[in-house]
């Protein structure tokens, strides 16, 4: 999963797009090590010492990891599930719509 996400962040760097993590490791040191070892290039909330049972996963009723939720610019949910490719497709289409309005071509 890491390489896919890393290249997605790179690819969308100049676009209205953000990859935000909710890290659900109990031990924050473990999360930081994963970020360093794998050069993870996105920002993550930490779910707290209860990990997968922490307040954020609980409030979002997350039952499996990884779960991906794709939101548009207004915070409306367009995808929720476990399929990284499907989520990426939905996110790119949304970015296309957002960017398409202001059209100055890009590169």
């Amino acid at each position, binding site marked *: 999963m890491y390489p896919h996400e890393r290249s997605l962040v790179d690819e969308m760097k100049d676009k209205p*797009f953000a990859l935000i993590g909710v890290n659900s*490791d109990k031990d924050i040191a*473990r999360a930081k090590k994963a970020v360093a070892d794998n050069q993870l290039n996105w920002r993550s909330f930490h779910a707290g010492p209860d990990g997968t049972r922490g307040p954020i996963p609980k409030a979002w009723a997350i*039952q499996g990891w990884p779960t991906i*939720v794709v*939101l548009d610019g207004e915070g409306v*949910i367009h995808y*929720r599930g476990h399929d990284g490719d499907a989520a*990426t497709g939905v996110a790119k289409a949304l970015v296309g719509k957002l960017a398409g309005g202001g059209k100055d071509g890009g590169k």
Partner: protein
Amino acid sequence: MRTIPTWALPLLLASALAAQQRPPQPTPKSPAAAERYAALKAEQKKLNDEWMTKAKAVMAEVEAAKKAGKPTPAMPMRPDTSALGKQALAAAKEATDGDDAVPFLVMAIGADRAGASDALSLLGDKYADHPGTAQIGSLIGFLPRLVGDDKAPAIAEKFAKSKNADVRGWAMFAKHEKTVETAGRDTDAYQGAKSELIKAAELASSADLKDRIREAIDTREKFGAGNVAPDIEGADLDGVAFKLSDYRGKVVFLDFWGDW
């Protein structure tokens, strides 16, 4: 030799640890059965402890090999507890009431994949009303895989008719989980499944079952496509506070992840 992939090991270890931390399960009431049960439990714990020690050692070797760029060693298989499971099933068959039989059956289902079918059939046939049967409630949804498509409906039906509200609730959850996940929200099928599940949750005493039902409905109604996501206020891994809503105006790919 059978092996398991490196990536799966931390997950297996975590689930083995979690299993140890769960509240203690009820034990048989009659002294003879209780003694037999304790002996089997001790044997099971010994096998698991040995495996965990071995697995942790191999995990350290894997880390070291990765750093040195050497091939990583194979992982030890989870311990084979099928013989224990067979003994537990035999003990359950000899037991004269549910208080003695159900703890053995729960053990048999966990310990011996091949014998799980017999144990589940026996639970359904004779002990569907016993409160201890609710411990395997979350497996009811997997009956087709565990006992085969031919036997599963009849066993599920017995659990659905249980006098115990938790056993009945789990059977209801197994029946409606898919509908709540996928049926159109304005259909009668969805509304019917939802109201039956809410009723089941009210009658149930199992916190686990109540949570599962609430999560299934919330997942659909609060987090399905078209809903506005709730905000998240928290801190990043460096302790800097931020909010999900800071990213309004951008498409957000929110990834619940963990390095395990």
